[in-house]
């Protein structure tokens, strides 16, 4: 069941390339079929690091404008999966993949597709906050725009404010915009990195354990922020923290040893999982 109303038609019309969703038989671990927009349509996706296979035959449809949490024990392939969604895994030499991965209908691995163009639409927030040390708060937020050729002062100012507002950081930094980004606290730095990702106006935001280095208060702020983001963005978040997955996601995918074991509504996953491995993991019996 959708927890949010469907997106306005206007937004879909502006994206001519999106697929129309005809009902399809759900894969063994796939999502129950519904008529909702799909952000990532991934079929039979496998990925190898050299000779080691990190992802095995993953088929999953990640819904648009919802928060999807990826959980699983360390080494289960969840970070690899997330990095494959905007081709960040290509920074690791010697990777190879099979299967198809579509983002709003576009093949991410098709011939001639540029990773740079994908990453403008699929942003990423990392485990460790990493504001650029040579740049001020404002420069950090705007660096993606500036390096992609945006020069218009008015546009830059507007995006700066909007991004910091969305990242719930504006009130804290509005008088410190010229201070170094690294002068902020850990939680603020992570929100600055989120603002930096939002400034280039991606459609989708990938978050790789964004709170694992933060204290509970800073974590709460980021989770609150994720709740606001899902009105406009597709969010995919990898987390080690099952409470966090339960608190802030609509859907949860459980990965184990490179396979997608189960994918479903978060409430079901945590209260009534259909797979015994999921049940064992979410109840804390292993992992």
């Amino acid at each position, binding site marked *: 069941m959708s927890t949010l109303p469907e997106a306005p038609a206007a937004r879909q019309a502006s994206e001519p390339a999106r697929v129309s969703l005809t009902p399809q038989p759900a894969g063994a671990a796939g999502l129950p079929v519904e008529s909702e927009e799909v952000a990532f349509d991934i079929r039979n996706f496998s990925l190898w690091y050299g000779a080691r296979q990190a992802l095995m035959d993953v088929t999953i449809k990640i819904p648009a404008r919802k928060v999807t949490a990826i959980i699983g024990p360390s080494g289960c392939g969840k970070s690899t999966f997330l990095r494959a969604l905007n081709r960040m895994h290509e920074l690791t030499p010697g990777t190879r993949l099979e299967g198809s991965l579509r983002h709003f209908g576009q093949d991410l691995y098709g011939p001639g597709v540029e990773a740079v163009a994908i*990453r*403008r639409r699929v*942003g990423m927030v990392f485990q460790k906050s990493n504001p*650029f040390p040579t740049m001020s708060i404002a420069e950090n937020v705007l660096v*993606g725009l500036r390096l*992609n050729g945006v020069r218009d002062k008015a546009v830059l100012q507007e995006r700066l404010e909007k991004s910091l507002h969305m990242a719930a950081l504006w009130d804290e930094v509005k008088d410190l915009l010229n201070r170094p980004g690294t002068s902020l606290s850990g939680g603020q730095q992570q929100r600055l990195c989120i603002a930096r990702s939002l400034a280039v106006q*991606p459609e989708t935001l990938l978050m790789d354990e964004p709170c694992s280095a933060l204290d509970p208060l800073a974590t709460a702020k980021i989770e609150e922020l994720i709740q606001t983001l899902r009105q406009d963005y597709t969010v995919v978040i990898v987390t080690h923290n099952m409470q966090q997955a339960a608190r802030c996601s609509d859907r949860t995918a459980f990965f184990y040893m490179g396979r997608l074991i189960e994918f479903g509504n978060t409430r079901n996953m945590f209260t009534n999982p259909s797979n015994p491995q999921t049940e064992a993991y979410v109840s804390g019996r292993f992992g």
Partner: protein
Amino acid sequence: MAASPYLPTEQFAHWRKIKSTAVTGVLVVCALAVIAPLFLVLYFLVVHGWSSIDWNFFTQLPKPTGETGGGMANAIVGTITLLTMASLVGVPIGVLGGIYLAEYGSDRANDWLRFAADVLNGVPSIVWGMVVYLMLVVPFKTFSAYAGGVALGFMMVPLVMRTTEEVLVLVPQSYREAALALGVARWKVIMVIVVRTALKGIATGIIIALARIAGETAPLLFTALGNTFWSHNLKEPISALPLQIFAYAISPYDDWHRQAWAGALVLMALILALNIIVRVLSRDRINKN
């Protein structure tokens, strides 16, 4: 009273103290031996050179044989000119080569490049002088500032390349990933994010290389040649402090010997100043991180 098993016997404690003192003493002597040559150099330069340093030394040309006084103004300007020209050759090639090593090269290509750079570092400086003599002096039939600058620039390349590579590798991978995840092209990520983060380190490497080559004499012998007058044209032979020192030091005249000491002191002060700049730059970097 039973002796505590944790306390050594008196005799044992005594022997251990002697050993400890002896070893510490050897280490202190070695440490002093390391810094002693520096003070030796400064001592001799100041004792012999200081008295000949006056305003004229920095403003006048060398006087003809037989006349006393005069200075090394042309040699000081010549050294600065040659270092600038060496930088024009050595910095772009060295920095871009270092960027290639750190960011682009395959492991195999990098192994070869590093090996080549290390061999180049070991090439005796007189050999550079001979190579550039054949490359630029013979074809153009004149010793020139160009030739001297190129010879020194070649010496800078491997130094700058290796230090650039080292500081670029120190830039955390997370900055590259963060910038790439914003959909920024890779070359922009490298030039704007990575190089900018490592800029102080790169500058430090360049200055260290300049300090290394500032005192080189051999590569200039067959290239810049030296000049007792101002050189008004980079196509002419040009003077340099080490060349002038060399020329004066092997002369039979006491006055020229004094001038040579003074020149050596000025050259040493220049190199010391470059090293102090390096210290300041590196201290800043450490504080910032």
